[in-house]
């Protein structure tokens, strides 16, 4: 059981590692537009890395439906509860 805030903290490390950028900050409002390295190619990488880290699975519908990092973190938190 992780809170949305805890998910965000851990997700930040996954983002940093996957996108190879130590300066990344995540807020619930962050979107792909805010992070230079976050493109369609690395999006797939992020999805897979997050699934591995949290030991969860996203559905096909979910990976295109999140409007921002906050929605994604909420979804992860729900899956873990």
């Amino acid at each position, binding site marked *: 059981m992780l809170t949305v805030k805890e998910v965000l903290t851990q997700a930040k490390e996954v983002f940093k*590692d*996957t996108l*190879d950028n130590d300066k990344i900050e995540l807020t619930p409002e962050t979107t792909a537009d805010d992070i230079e390295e976050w493109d*369609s*190619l690395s999006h*797939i*990488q992020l*999805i*897979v*890395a997050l699934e591995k880290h949290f030991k969860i*699975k*996203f*559905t*096909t519908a979910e*990976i*295109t439906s999140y409007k921002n990092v906050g929605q994604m973190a909420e979804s992860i938190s729900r899956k873990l509860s």
Partner: protein
Amino acid sequence: MQDPVIPYNILVKNFKKDSSGFKTLKIAVMADFASQHYAKALQSALILHRLSGYIWEADYNSIEATIINQDSELYQQHFDYIIIIPSVHKLNKRFSHSAQKSKFADDTINQISDLISLLLSRSSARIILTNFQELNDGIFGNYSNKTDQSFLYHIRRINVELMTLAIKQPNLFIADAQNLFSNFGMTQAFDAKLFIHGDIIYSLDFLAALAQNTSGIIASIQGDIKKCIVLDLDNTLWGGVIGDDGIENIQIGDLGIGKAFSMLQNWLYDLKNRGIILAVCSKNTESVAKEVFEKHPGMTLRLNDISVFVANWETKVDNILFIQSVLNIGFDSMVFLDDNPFEREIVKKHIPGIEVPDLPEDPSEYVWYLRSLNLFETASFSGEDLMRTKQYQEEATRLEFQKLFTNERDFLASLDMKAVIKPVDNFNCPRIAQLTQRSNQFNLRTIRYTDEDIKRIMHDPDYKSLTVTLEDKYGDYGLISAVILRLLSSSELFIDTWIMSCRVLKRGVELCLLNEMVTLGLESGYKFLVGEYIPTPKNGMVKNHYEQLGFRPDSDGRYYLELTNFNYKDTVIHKSGKYVNS
């Protein structure tokens, strides 16, 4: 057991590494799914082999169209490699729609075969084609194996036919995606979500494994291959310590943990028969260690399977240096097996380039782990490979014998060397190709050729070639040297390739060959032999080769030898075959 395949996210961290000093290869990738992740993984995997990939991706899902269109980018650039990855999903789709299911494999293989022939006629690139994962589509269950109406029946037939095709086409190599699939399993190899979302089909980790697999094929064609395994004995080749436990108490054979060591020995025996040299490096009394090979009934490996046997109380590092000096191969082509992590670390630290697998603690896992590393990728296999162990044993005998002579020439004369010198022909063609792939040190320009290339050269009137097969009173060295000459002009013959196996260094073979080249040149009315040295990290030994032979360096970086007035070199090699001018 540790997993030797690097996952995608870790592999691609190499993507940004500096590869400016590495050899650049131009590679085309064609797939019928979104291949960008594969391309990125491939580039990263090549960097681990010290290669730099310039990768061009064909338009999405256009394999056939790209090959058929003679104006396509595929033929505009001169690619070194073309990688083709047809997916099993698209194959499945075609199968579903096929009207005559029983003919599906035949039709598919004919189509692939035609495309490959067309591609090979238009490009000199090496082609790497993946085979198909044996996907059970759940339509027939096990009855798939009992009817030619099932998809599985046809995938398996296609995979076998692809092997037959690769045997026929020397420039076609198969990347065994089915084999990777069986390691991964269905749920790990495919990613249903990525297929729907981005037509990626495979999981990122599977694509990473495929990239590592294909880069291994490329590296082996580029000459990055393992040639020798150096073996520790106690607790590596058998259970227990021979010096303490005695020959009756070491573990080897069908009982208990002895079975694990027998498995390892059988595996090593098969590798030896494929041409991998086995050497022993052990802290033991030599006679005690050798007795096991001579007398223990459970041993698969015998003394005549071992090319160099070193058992003493020196350090392993010193002994490996000695083994390397006898075999004359690069450290990066050697693998060191030792159960002791401490010894492994010392060897890793002091001998850069040598491959030292971290053997699992439990000997029962040795073979499984070593198999999974896929260390012995090769781009060729010829009759010479079967003779190699014997040849190195003969070399060790020669080294002993040489100690009796103070004069180098007397020693060479006593060997009673006989050479057969002749052009490339259909029989020695695979060996010449292999020699261009394996030789790193005595290799003036390091151009790698496949069988196909050599065949083309053989029939091209602009080329001439000479090969040397050598034997002496200790045995047969086999075909150990070759030159490929290209006509530059009516007066100049360019030495495109000059290679020699390091087993025959300092025997005078190069002098003998130079004499032949001069004769060949003069008979055909040429005035100059033109040589070139292209430096690599490994061919420093031939840096001054042409100058030492009396070639004159010119401002264009090449070396020139005037054929008239050439003083034939003195050698002690007897020629037992006159070359036939091709």
